[in-house]
């Protein structure tokens, strides 16, 4: 049976949202941001989720997930702007039970 998780996402205007996200739809953070319209359409997930544009860059604000990036993500973030130590690409963070309670901030537009 599916279970939702709660994640906290601060949008680009500084507003913090509490989001209930499903774990059974194979979604990722980038898609949740788009689904809940937390950023202007066309400014997040531009490449469709292939770790090729960094438009879904987020800063991880607590230790619910690891800051370890996969190789594609690492390569993309090397070329992106506004990158910090806690930067991750939203499209590379799947919505699973493990991320319940995750706090994120959406990075500025590239």
């Amino acid at each position, binding site marked *: 049976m599916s279970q939702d998780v709660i994640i906290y996402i601060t949008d680009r205007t500084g507003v913090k949202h509490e989001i209930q996200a499903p774990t059974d739809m194979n979604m990722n953070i980038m898609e949740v941001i788009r689904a809940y319209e937390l950023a*202007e*359409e*066309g400014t997040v997930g*531009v490449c469709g989720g*292939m770790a090729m544009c960094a438009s879904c860059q987020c800063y991880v604000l607590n230790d619910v997930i690891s800051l370890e990036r996969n*190789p594609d993500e690492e*390569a993309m973030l*090397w*070329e992106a702007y506004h990158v910090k130590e806690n930067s991750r690409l939203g499209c590379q963070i799947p919505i699973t039970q493990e991320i319940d309670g995750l706090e994120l901030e959406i990075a500025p537009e590239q």
Partner: protein
Amino acid sequence: MIETDILIIGAGPTGLFAVFEAGLLQLKCHIIDALPQPGGQLAELYPKKPIFDIPGYPSVLAGELVDNLMEQIKQFQPGFTLAETAETIDKLEDGTFIVTTNKGTKHHAKAVAIAGGLGTFEPRKPALENISFYEEKGVEYFVKDPELFRDKRIVIAGGGDSALDWSIFLSNVASEVTLVHRRNEFRGALDSVEKVQELKKLGKINLITPAEVVAIHGKNHVESIVLENEGIQQVFETDYFIPLFGLTPKLGAIANWGLEIEKNAIKVNNALDYQTNIDGIYAIGDVNIYPGKLKLILCGFHEATLMCQSVYNRINPGKKYVLKYTTVSGVDGFDGTRKEAEKAVVKAIE
């Protein structure tokens, strides 16, 4: 002045397929694209990635789909204005349009179909103070014409497929190819990485990693760049600097054409023909928005088809037409070719 029936802006899959559907209605198309090659994001962003939701193809590589579309529309002889962006549009009194590109190329069309996808792909420029001064004076963000680099010294910067592929290709054209990347690891197709490795061993590509270009020098043209490697700077003489750091899409000049824009996309009438608020200008594929819109290639194909029917009626008011099936009518190319199903044989079976 280029004359055409439908001027298509954007050579992605939707724009390319529109040429086919227009051709069936005897309408001629011309396509403008900012990139030097057709295919849009399929060719530029993910040519080697498989797509699984094209009807009839359990799996097709994005690059292959573009090749197939080009093959499919060849018979309708589309014109192309590549590596130029549509800048201005003027509607004439007779309802036709003149679209002018950033390079001044003028196109006269009876209808305009914007199939611009995510927008114009603009190069991500390295943050170098004087880089704009050297644009087209030794700094190139695309390789439009490889011959430009014949027997020249070039420095390519970047760590993805295009940096790797152009380094490989230009190693047979330029007198000296240097590939610079901020990291030791490259992100590209394995065969490209291996090929660069091999060319490095043969001395045909000079590989400098991890390093970054931090300055450009030259009087009226690039003469040298400054490389920084672990805090140490070195001046490196070169004729060209080609940063290939990927592309970001921008709606660009089209945003100022007086079209209704919502959520970075162009509003269209989806109940009818994907026409915008300006009569005669259509928007198809990922660039448009309407209730229930899905940004899928297959939806773009559908939208292109309906747009062509609408343009036919616009150009030929009152001229009756009934949708035909290619299996029945075949396809007559503008190049004189004809494709048709083999005739059934009537023969008695004894």
